[in-house]
């Protein structure tokens, strides 16, 4: 009985002589790469834009409440807090 690995070795020796199919993929690869950066950048761009918008809104509210003593941004909070003491 021949060791199966011997079969594998013999088959591999014969198989190595096979000529692999040739093809040309350069155009397809370039096309895929042209689309790739956008695909990669899109989720990050959306996340960065949303975070930026949120930060800008928070900054505007802070500046507004600091500059106008009439607009007491924390007033409502202190009112609720003092009511809860009773």
């Amino acid at each position, binding site marked *: 009985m021949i060791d199966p690995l011997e*079969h594998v070795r013999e*088959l591999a020796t014969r*198989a190595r002589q*096979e000529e692999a*199919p040739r*093809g040309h*993929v350069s155009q397809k690869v*370039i096309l895929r790469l042209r689309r790739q950066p956008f695909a990669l950048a899109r989720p990050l761009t959306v996340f960065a834009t949303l975070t930026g918008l949120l930060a800008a809104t928070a900054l505007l509210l802070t500046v507004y409440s600091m500059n106008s003593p009439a607009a007491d941004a924390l007033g409502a909070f202190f009112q609720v807090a003092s009511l809860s003491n009773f």
Partner: protein
Amino acid sequence: MLEASVTEADRHDIRASIAGDERAFGRLLERYEAQVFAQMWRFTRDQRVLDELVQDVFVEVFLSLPKFRGDAPFLHWLRRIATRVGYRHWRQEHRERRRAQLLEQRPWTPPAGIRQLSATEAAEQLFGLLAGLAPKDRLVLTLHYLEECSAKEISERTGWTPTLVRVRLHRAGKRLRRLVTTAGHGRTPHD
């Protein structure tokens, strides 16, 4: 910094590709396309899949170019990426077959007179036989027998340590023997 082991043409095209020169990357691609087609042919016998795998390799090569240190020839680095892409393909295929419960081990009959087989017939026989193994066993045997890689070369291609490669080679050989002999087809026409 790209070292002397990288040819002047490769060095120039790699730098230009990183800077976004499509034509330079096209030249790099055409220089190594045939080698990658031949290597990926070990991972599939379907020409449509082959085309996609070769594309995947080059897309990954392009995206990884800034990480290429140049301490070995470009082809070595390319072959590592190609091995990773091929292995990933096998693992995905294996998962799909397991999900579809198509993983029953088909008995393999050694062909009568391997020397009389054409190269393509032999390649198909070998591909079919190794397909019955888990991807890591299949990879280590393919690299060892078909690509004639030593344990050190397999280690470089896969990122596994040389000791792990030797252990995997040994275990994969045992599993292959079991696969053939449990089906009762371990005999050849010479026996």
